[in-house]
């Protein structure tokens, strides 16, 4: 229970830290997407219902911070209206990608980190790509310059790089709170 609650705190802290992290020129403008890493690491460590609640919390905070909410109808020129991603799409995205991470949970519980690390990067990549496509969709027209590909790719790679740290922290937290992440399953005994 304490561990599950702590994952919400981790995501919140990640959201605060994200505000202070700059993007890197040497990485084609890529940045360390701490929120995605925190969410995906937590999503694989907690049961499905908690993951959904976490996705709701993370998506709500993310959209609250980043979605531009258009003003109510005082604009006389409808073409001048601000268009952005609909409020709530990030919840759906986090839940969907968190669901993918849940698929790797049995592997993760057996102590295998390789695929979860790769999936963290893939998840960050998909999140940014889908968000960018949604923005394109809402603005009309598909503009996809090479720089955007580079930016998304380098961000995903940076996420992969730091995700072992996330898994390590979660394991330590689980040990401290008495939560069982690692589970080998029922083993046959040979006597």
């Amino acid at each position, binding site marked *: 229970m304490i561990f599950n609650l702590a994952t919400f705190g981790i995501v919140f802290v990640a*959201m605060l830290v994200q505000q202070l992290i700059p993007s890197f020129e040497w990485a084609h403008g890529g940045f360390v997407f701490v929120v995605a890493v925190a969410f995906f690491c937590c999503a694989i460590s907690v049961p499905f219902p908690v993951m959904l609640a976490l996705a709701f919390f993370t998506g709500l905070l993310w959209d609250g911070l980043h979605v531009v909410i258009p003003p109510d109808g005082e604009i006389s020129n409808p073409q001048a209206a*601000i268009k952005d991603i609909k409020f709530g799409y990030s919840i759906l995205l986090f839940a969907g990608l968190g669901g993918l991470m849940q698929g790797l949970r049995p592997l993760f519980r057996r102590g295998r980190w390789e695929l979860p690390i790769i999936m963290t990067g893939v998840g960050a990549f998909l999140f940014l790509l889908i968000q960018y496509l949604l923005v394109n969709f809402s603005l009309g027209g598909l503009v996809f310059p090479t720089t955007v590909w580079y930016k998304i790719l380098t961000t995903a790679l940076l996420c992969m790089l730091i995700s072992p740290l996330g898994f390590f922290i979660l394991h330590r937290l689980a040990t401290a709170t008495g939560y069982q992440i690692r589970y080998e399953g029922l083993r046959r005994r040979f006597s």
Partner: protein
Amino acid sequence: MKHLNLLAFVIFSLLLGWVFMFSTDTKRKIQRPILSVFGVVNKTAHALSADEDVVNGVNLGPAALAEKYSEEELAERYSYLLREVMELRAIKSQFAQIQRDNLKLRESLGFLKSTDLSGLVPARVIKRESSTWWNEFWINKGESSGLVLQSPVLTTTLAREGEEPRPALIGKVTALSENTAKVLLLTDERCKVAAKVDRTLESGLLMGSRAQDGTPTLMLRYLSKNTEELLNNPNANVLSSPAGGVVPANFLLGIVKDFKTLEFYGEATVEPAVDFAQLTDVFVMLPTDEAQVIEAAEAADAESAAIPRAAIPVAEPTSEPTSEPDPSARTEPEPLSEQ
């Protein structure tokens, strides 16, 4: 699927559907406390990174300096700093003259002479990320200073050399907390402003272009297809038009650089009037429209109970002499005549 998982999925779907059905007001009510909390973080980070407290990113004392540098390095550093002191002395001697010129320019703009001091709020850019450099930034003024959503954000600029400085629109406020606000820049494609070309009958919609590298450009769309006026009038000023209903008319936006005819309409490339890379101090125009004021007041009343206002520090003026605009200079600009 386990029953518990299924139940969680159903509840999640219902909650998600509920979020999608939120009204704009509800979304703002949710956004406001979030922005307040994260606004405090941004402000704190800004305060901690003050240049005078940090040397090369680290606050070094004499002992640490002696440990870090060899004698040769210290000597080299000393001579470098000495050169810098000389340069700064030279700059300082020019400063008084520049300050006098600056005051004259401000006077010419009517910022000091105007009797109505409630029209403009000076603000400082406190956060600008490189990843969204041409899209948005945060300023240190918010709802408590009278800002409302869609408030136009201005700065002064010289349209051309030799001309008098004039107010230029750089964006509008899109999110507000008690003491901070997020400004969507003109160079963002989502920020669309009704605009007209000076000395012509042409008007259209000005917006940024997506995923820009280097210097940003603006696009003026929905112009007439084969307009002789534009083809014969390159470098015309682009001004805000009252058609959009949000931005007052005749604020300078940019200069036409290129015009091309597309399938259904004409499109002009516009060079911004302002150097968007160098924005540090801006002015936010307070609402003059009664409906805008009422809407802002209603929103503030509705959320007064929800926001922990006491937890948010009030913006303090910095000690830099020139960069912070004089609070006494808050005025409403005189309406500009079309040139």
